[in-house]
């Protein structure tokens, strides 16, 4: 009996061990299978190629696609096989067209059976053969991009050379390119045929970005949603012009336009009245139908061991804001923050609601990460002014414009009356349905320390307790400061300090006395003695 039990136990143990060994492999395999490999040939910052890379990274994060970004030069043979889909971005045609360059990658891509998307020129022969249609090389042309969903049109910049496909089979197409000189000459902008997709060129802003994201969404998930964008005021800082910002908030409130604000804060000097003036504005935003995304700080230098430092900076900012009854619903950050281990862990992980903005001119990584982080909900930014010249039936109209991924239409905070006027004009131009955070069923959560801010259906909660949007003393435990003790040696040097001063003063007094005496003797030399 005991022997039998022992046998059963041993079998069970063996089973458990085997299961334990299998499970991580399965998870790992699954993760890799779902990951997209994003390969680019060159950053080509001169032609804003960097903006294309970060916009595509944002788009993929927004679609909850774990993505690894790698330069073609850094690609390792066989790496491709671990991924479900691959995006090839050619940013610099002259570089990629060199015969024999990046052969490892092209050879692997030719044998890859998963989803493939090629963006840009230098389409390889094996890629062309995957599509049914006639390939045409067009030079020195200008096109209008027509969004077939909304019938909105936008004039594109002049193109020197590009390869377009005139499909002959039933394929999914996104957008249409209408030749500016010969209106009857049209080509589909984006084409999806089975697992293959192609975009002849790409821009990070404007109608092209919207159409391209639809194509990517269709290619990756075979679905296309209509998600209303969120109007977002960016670049709000404690040093912004409050007069103009207040006027803009009033305007939005009066127009009943829901909005969000991406606002930075400070981790020091929070005891100053200027910080209270700032939080007063932020409370006004919350009370005017707006929500606040805490924008991560501007970073200038790379320094070692920044994980705890940044974590404490973020926690200090959130704590100070909460004390002033300001409750951010998410975190906003430039895109490069999602390509850095430190920023991901210490900055973005504070929330499941992340708004990814375009990168500033100078970026500084602490610990670069090729893989992005996925959040509960990610919004990708698109500037409102890039939509300003979109027309429909010859009129400036974007009412029918639809977005396939969660997007934030951004307007920079006004700095003076002129920019305020421009901002109001841009907002009035946004006639499409906008997202209302208050009506969304999603819950915004921001964590700091042991505390959690929750936003759900226009109500704010701190650690599960409902919060009024009026300033009150929110009790958050303060760290106890240790008092320093002065040593006896310090006291000695303090005494010695004084002694040296006294000595110098004495010397000075003696010098002055000698001077006076000397002068008297000198004068006496010339006096007549009686």
């Amino acid at each position, binding site marked *: 009996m005991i022997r039998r039990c022992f046998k059963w136990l041993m079998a069970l143990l063996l089973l458990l061990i085997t299961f334990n060994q299998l499970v991580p492999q399965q998870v790992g395999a699954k993760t890799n299978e779902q990951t997209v490999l994003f390969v680019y040939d060159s950053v080509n910052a001169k032609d804003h190629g960097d903006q294309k890379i970060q916009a595509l990274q944002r788009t993929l994060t927004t679609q909850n696609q774990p993505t690894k970004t790698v330069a073609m030069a850094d690609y390792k043979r066989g790496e491709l096989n671990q991924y479900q889909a691959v995006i090839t971005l050619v940013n610099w045609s002259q570089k990629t067209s060199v015969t024999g360059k990046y052969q490892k990658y092209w050879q692997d891509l030719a044998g890859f059976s998963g989803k493939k998307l090629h963006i840009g020129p230098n389409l390889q022969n094996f890629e062309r053969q995957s599509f049914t249609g006639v390939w045409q090389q067009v030079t020195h042309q200008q096109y209008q991009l027509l969004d077939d969903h909304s019938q909105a049109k936008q004039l594109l910049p002049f193109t020197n050379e590009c390869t377009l496909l005139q499909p002959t089979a039933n394929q999914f197409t996104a957008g249409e390119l209408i030749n500016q000189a010969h209106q009857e000459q049209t080509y589909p902008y984006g084409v999806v045929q089975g697992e293959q997709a192609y975009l002849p060129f790409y821009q990070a802003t404007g109608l092209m970005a919207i159409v391209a994201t639809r194509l990517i969404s269709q290619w990756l998930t075979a679905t296309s949603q209509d998600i209303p964008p969120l109007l977002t005021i960016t670049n709000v800082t*404690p*040093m*912004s*012009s409050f007069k103009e910002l207040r006027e803009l908030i009033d305007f939005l409130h009066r127009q009943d336009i829901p909005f969000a604000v991406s606002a930075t804060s400070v981790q020091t000097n929070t005891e100053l009245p200027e*910080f209270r003036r700032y939080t007063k504005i932020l409370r006004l935003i919350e009370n005017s139908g707006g929500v606040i995304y805490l924008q991560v700080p*501007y970073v200038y230098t790379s320094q070692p061991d920044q994980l705890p430092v940044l974590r404490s900076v973020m926690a200090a900012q959130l704590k100070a804001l909460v004390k002033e009854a300001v409750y951010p619903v998410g975190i906003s950050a430039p895109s490069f923050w999602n390509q850095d281990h430190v920023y991901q862990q210490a900055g973005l992980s504070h929330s499941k609601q992340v708004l990814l903005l375009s990168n500033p001119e100078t970026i500084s990584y602490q610990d670069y990460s090729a893989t992005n982080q996925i959040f509960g909900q990610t919004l990708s930014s698109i500037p409102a002014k890039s939509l300003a010249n979109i027309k429909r039936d010859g009129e400036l109209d974007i009412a029918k414009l639809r977005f396939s991924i969660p997007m934030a239409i951004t307007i920079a905070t006004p700095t003076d009356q002129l920019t305020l006027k421009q901002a109001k004009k841009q907002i009035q131009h946004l006639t499409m349905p906008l997202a209302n955070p208050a009506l969304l069923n999603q819950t915004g959560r921001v964590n700091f320390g042991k505390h959690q801010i929750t936003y759900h259906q226009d109500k704010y909660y701190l650690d599960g307790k409902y919060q009024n949007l009026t300033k009150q003393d929110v009790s958050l435990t303060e760290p106890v400061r240790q008092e320093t003790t002065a040593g006896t040696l310090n006291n000695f040097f303090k005494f010695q300090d004084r002694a*040296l001063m006294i000595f110098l003063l004495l010397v000075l007094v003696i010098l002055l006395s000698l001077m006076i005496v000397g002068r008297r003797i000198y004068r006496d030399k010339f006096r007549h003695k009686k």
Partner: protein
Amino acid sequence: MAKIMVQMRQIWRRLTRYISPALLATIAIAIIAGILLFVPPYNGYANNGDFERSMYISGLYVLPDRPYNHFNYFVRQFGIMQYFNESAATLFSSQPMIIKTAIMLNKFFYSTTIFDIRFLGVLYYVFYLGAIYLLTEALTFRMNRRRAYLLAAIMVFIFGDSSLTLYFNSFFAEPAMLISFIYLFACTLLITRRRYRHVWPLYLLFAVSTVIFITVKQQNAPLAVIVAFIFMSFIFAFQSRGAKLLVTLGTLAIIGTGVITYAKITKDFNDINQYQSMTRGVLLNAKDPGKSLQAGGINRQYALLRGLPYFETYMPQDLHGQEIKQNLLAKYNFVWILRYYLGHLDQFGELLDLAARDTQIVQVSAVGDYEQSAGKAPIAQTHYFTGYSLIKKAFYPKVFSFYLLLLVVLTGVYSYAAYQDFKHQRSENIVRLALVIGCSAMIIAVCLISIIGDGDADLAKHLFMAPLAVDLLTVLLISDILSHRLFQFVPMAETVSTSDSTEQAVMTEVQAPLSAPSQEPKAIIKSSISTKTESTLPPKLVPIKSEKTSTRTVSLHLPVGPESNTSLGESQHFPASHKQRPLLYAHQHLKKESVRGGHHD
């Protein structure tokens, strides 16, 4: 015991025969600094972010395949750019010239692709030892031998301190400032004390040191006024109009160098300083910083930047953006800041006291001194031969008024001898007074410039010249006390071999009376005299220290030979006491034209 004493004396005699105090100080510092810089574990300063300014323009880059730690560890090797260097100079400085010289040495002796910072260290090291030699020589000149060696030991303790020599293995501009200013100081003393027969190399060295000192760091541009003031005092050493004109032109050239250096400050650099002068200066101790800003017509919200330096890692606003330039930086300048401080003297006083507290901190505590391979903790500091800097840090009062008092007292103390020189138409102590005032004023000026120009940001590094000036004043004061020339003029200007040879070759350079026509060439007197005293001087000069002696000044008018060169004078004043007679005897073989007396020094 007696045997030991005899042996000790013999060793002492042998030592002093071959090694002069200056050479001793130089050798000792060479060993101390050599161990620090060139013997494993190698020491130097880690990068605090300043290195890039001079590195890239000099054609160096951080090696990508090796760990590079800002702040934490000293990095020894860098890459040498092999192709066209497109880096533009972020600021005007003569430092890249020095680094490029080190790169040349590196390419010749070590590698054309990898630069070892120790080649820069060697360059600084060699010039520093030269500076130490000249300074010790200037200070121990005409000094009792034992006291001279004592002073040499003090020199080693002060100038061998690792807090100074650590700078050599770094791309900071401070080592060039340190070396050039010591040369400048030593040359001034050597010229006025007529230590060497040919003075033109000293004038040349003075000129080169001045140019390097002023141009190596833009912060030194205002200090050109002080250097010009010191040089201007040379006017008392000359009688001819031509020479005086040359001194005036030289003074103007020094000021011109300062003006050019100041004018070359780039916009970016100016923005950094201007920003920090506000956030780390005006706002730092203000009771209501927002109100202070508002009163000056600036958005009061910028008070929230209080205390944040320009290179703060995490900032609430884009410092490179237009907004901050338009709304903050364009709204004030240094006149605004000065006016603000004059209206808030208590706050200014607090900041100056803060500067005074940092004045004696030379070792950069924000960065590590060891390589990562040394296995030390990040930002680990070396304590090897840092006794002087540690004592200094604790010893000096931490109030700005101390330095003001020091300026007044030192000026008072040195004025007496200068007045006597002025009365007797001599120049040595007048120039020495100018040097003392210049150095004391430098301490004050450096504190003021740093606070007004950059707030308390990077204060310890910005104040580098202040502790150096204090050190130089300290050794000068000690040497003057030891040689009893604090209040007196030591009349002979001569070159004396400091060896203990019984037969000392004395080369005496005798100056013409200041009233004499300038075209009269000086006389060079070479004589061989016997001396058995311990003094490095011939016994004729010893009586000066005797307070009982009535020192009567006499003048020797010496014959001038056609072979005599440079015209600095032909006669000298001598104290005429009975103990000074050996001097007179020593020169009696020369034709004595007249003896003038009656003055009491």
